[in-house]
């Protein structure tokens, strides 16, 4: 609630708050509150609080809070990541003219995210889901004077909208089947979902029954929502462009929390998924992980590489859900939050320094471009150390938290594939290859940025001595240090090599897995991953530090990777241009058919009116005028009698007398 208060306070105060103390205090408050809540609730009975909201017909909707292991974990995780980011932002965004808006939006986002995780009704979760998307939109387009930023936030919002559609469809299906959207009623211990079953091709629940296909479709609808929010293939296209926002925003939202909301949703509605839905999720997750890793290989923008890395890791989490081990997925989510956030913050420090150099030396170069960096380890040693720790965690190097979580997913997938059949082994094998590629590309980033010579030395002409590159300021370094500590294993498990001992996984899923564990896998797979990472790093060292790059830098494979597989262009041609063409067609139709029809009617009416005018003028008026002129002519003729001659008068007298006499005599 406190971030909400902070948001309101800042929106009312406007420009006066430049230092963000209010937001900082608010998030610190949330951190302590979250921590306390987590301590009380973890591994205890869930707590629910409810109040009536509104009633439609016979159904009443309640608003309330659900605090169980999953939600309190997220409730504690979000402020833990957000608090360092807030501190970091004070230094990173210093001097920005729109900083008051930044704090406002950041508080709004925190409020929305916290609300999302504790709501007990799917409807309310949807409300906060949308709000999170909206806050993301505002923050991506924070520097709204840049054209690329505007395009990026528009794209993010539109793609997220597709996901929201999926969420709505899922809500509708769930409500039709169960007549309630309350999480406790649905997924609690005696939940309606557990009381329903598939009987004779029908999905039967205590209050309704639908054909069986709706069970799968309901799950897939929620997965669609997660696909958009958590940037799965093919709806991942918004996340690389979302890097237009400030780096601190990218670290908080697009690495650690919002993109994790999708995974959180899937974990919450996990009982709703059928076998085929889960398989679909796993396949999509694998494809996402593989394609994103491939795209990351060819990028040269630091933040883009990290964005694709995020997408790839989200694919891992989806695979974790797809194979049934959603606790492993959440474990990976937690560790990923810490090391990805740290990676982004370090990248932000580097970019900050490069931007300083740019303004001081008045050269024109992209501060985010890897090809402009090199040898930064001499100038920013602490940043280098922290980024290396995070990279090791990302690669799954032993003794880091990432090792535990990534191995949990890969090994579980291997066991699952073994239990299903040999064809399913493609998934774990792909995951292994992706892990190796992950190590390779993050190594590439480190080597290109921190090792070797600074590539801009030639252009600077010795000005480097006048304006040397500094280490990042303390305000930035402290949060990064805190996050770095969390990247190591002791936070999560006292055994650095076995993930089963992690308290996190124990707390989330108490049942056994559906598949049998394989001890061989537990030994071989970590070994393969470790060896593969080391080999990858050696190759990377050779290529990037010693500049013995064997391939043609412009080979087509790299081009495809750089252009993100041309997916964006494909979307542009098919959807964007298609929609525009449709709009043009509708416009043409409206103008030439509808308007033509309307103007046809108009011309008919006009001609009818003209006809009636003509009729009125010549026939009706003509009739009246003819009568008048006939009367006039008759009168004129009759008037000739009055010619003043006496004999005419006498004549008429005698004529009348004669006629009178004739009448009297004969009639």
């Amino acid at each position, binding site marked *: 609630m406190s971030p909400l208060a902070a948001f309101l306070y800042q929106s009312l105060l406007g420009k006066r708050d430049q230092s963000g103390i209010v937001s900082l205090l608010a998030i610190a408050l949330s951190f302590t509150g979250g921590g306390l809540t987590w301590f009380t609730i973890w591994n205890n009975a869930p707590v629910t609080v409810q109040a009536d909201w509104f009633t439609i017909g016979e159904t009443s909707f309640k608003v309330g809070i659900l605090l169980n292991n999953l939600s309190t974990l997220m409730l504690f995780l979000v402020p833990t990541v957000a608090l360092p980011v807030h501190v970091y932002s004070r230094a990173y965004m210093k001097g920005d003219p729109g900083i008051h808006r930044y704090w406002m939006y950041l508080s709004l986002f925190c409020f929305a995210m916290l609300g999302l995780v504790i709501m007990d009704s799917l409807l309310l979760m949807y409300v906060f889901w949308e709000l999170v998307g909206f806050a993301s939109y505002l923050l991506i387009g924070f520097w709204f004077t840049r054209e690329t930023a505007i395009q990026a936030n528009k794209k993010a919002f539109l793609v997220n909208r597709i996901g929201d559609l999926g969420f709505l469809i899922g809500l509708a299906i769930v409500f039709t089947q169960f007549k309630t959207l309350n999480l406790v009623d649905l997924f609690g211990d005696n939940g309606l979902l557990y009381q329903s079953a598939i009987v004779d091709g029908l999905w039967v629940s205590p209050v309704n029954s639908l054909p069986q296909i709706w069970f799968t479709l309901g799950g897939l609808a929620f997965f669609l929502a997660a696909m958009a929010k958590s940037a799965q293939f093919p709806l991942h296209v918004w996340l690389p462009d979302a890097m237009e926002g400030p780096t601190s925003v990218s670290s908080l939202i697009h690495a650690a929390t919002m993109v994790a909301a999708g995974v959180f949703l899937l974990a919450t509605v996990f009982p709703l998924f059928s076998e085929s839905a889960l398989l679909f999720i796993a396949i999509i997750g694998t494809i996402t992980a593989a394609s994103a890793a491939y795209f990351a290989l060819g990028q040269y923008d630091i933040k883009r590489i990290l964005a694709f890395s995020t997408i790839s890791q989200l694919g891992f989490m989806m695979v974790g859900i797809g194979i049934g081990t959603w606790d492993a997925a959440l474990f990976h989510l937690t560790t990923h939050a810490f090391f990805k956030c740290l990676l982004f913050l370090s990248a932000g420090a580097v970019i900050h320094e490069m931007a300083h150099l740019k303004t001081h030396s008045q050269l024109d170069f992209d501060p985010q471009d890897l090809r402009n960096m090199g040898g930064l380890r001499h100038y920013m040693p602490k940043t280098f150390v922290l980024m290396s720790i995070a990279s090791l965690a990302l690669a799954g190097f032993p003794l880091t938290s990432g090792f535990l979580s990534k191995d949990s997913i890969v090994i579980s997938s291997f066991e699952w594939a073994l239990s299903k059949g040999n064809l399913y082994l493609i998934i774990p094998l792909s995951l292994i290859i992706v892990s190796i590629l992950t190590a390779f590309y993050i190594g590439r980033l480190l080597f290109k940025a921190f090792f070797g010579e600074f590539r801009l030395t030639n252009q600077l002409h010795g000005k480097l001595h006048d304006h040397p590159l500094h280490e990042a300021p303390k305000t930035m370094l402290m949060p990064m240090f805190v996050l770095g500590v969390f990247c190591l294993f002791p936070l999560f498990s006292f055994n650095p090599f076995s993930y089963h001992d992690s308290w996190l996984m124990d707390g989330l899923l108490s049942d056994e897995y559906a598949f049998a564990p394989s001890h061989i896998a537990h030994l071989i797979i970590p070994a393969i991953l470790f060896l593969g990472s080391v080999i990858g790093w050696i190759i990377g060292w050779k290529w990037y530090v010693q500049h013995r790059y064997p391939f043609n830098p412009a080979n087509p494979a790299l081009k495809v990777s750089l252009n993100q597989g041309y997916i964006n262009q494909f979307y542009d041609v098919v959807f964007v241009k298609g929609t525009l063409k449709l709009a043009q067609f509708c416009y043409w139709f409206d103008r030439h058919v509808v308007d033509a029809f309307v103007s046809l009617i108009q011309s008919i009416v006009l001609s009818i009116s003209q006809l009636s005018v003509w009729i009125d003028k010549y026939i009706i008026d003509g009739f009246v005028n003819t009568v008048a002129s006939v009367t006039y002519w008759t009168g004129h003729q009759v*008037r000739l009698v*009055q*010619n*003043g*001659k*006496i*004999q005419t008068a*006498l*004549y008429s007298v*005698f004529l009348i007398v004669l006629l009178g006499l004739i009448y009297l005599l004969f009639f």
Partner: protein
Amino acid sequence: MITLTHFLVVSACIFSIGLYTVLSKKNAIMILVGIELMINAAILNFVAFGKYDKVSYSGQIFALFAIVLAAAAVAVGLAIVLNVYRHYNTINPDEVNQLKDK
């Protein structure tokens, strides 16, 4: 044998001729002549019917009165014609059309 009918027929003819004279002549004197003819026809009628009234001789006496009246009428008529002539300088009744409807 001269019956009453003969007289009446003659009277009718003279009357019609007098009427025609009144209606169609272009001279005011001729109009007066026509009036005289009509009065004469009426007097003949009176006299014809008066043959059968010995008690009060009303037919013949009234015929005498009619002759006197005719004379008076003609006198006044001629005076009027004289005045008209003095004013309009013509006795053609068609030219005295000041009362014409313009």
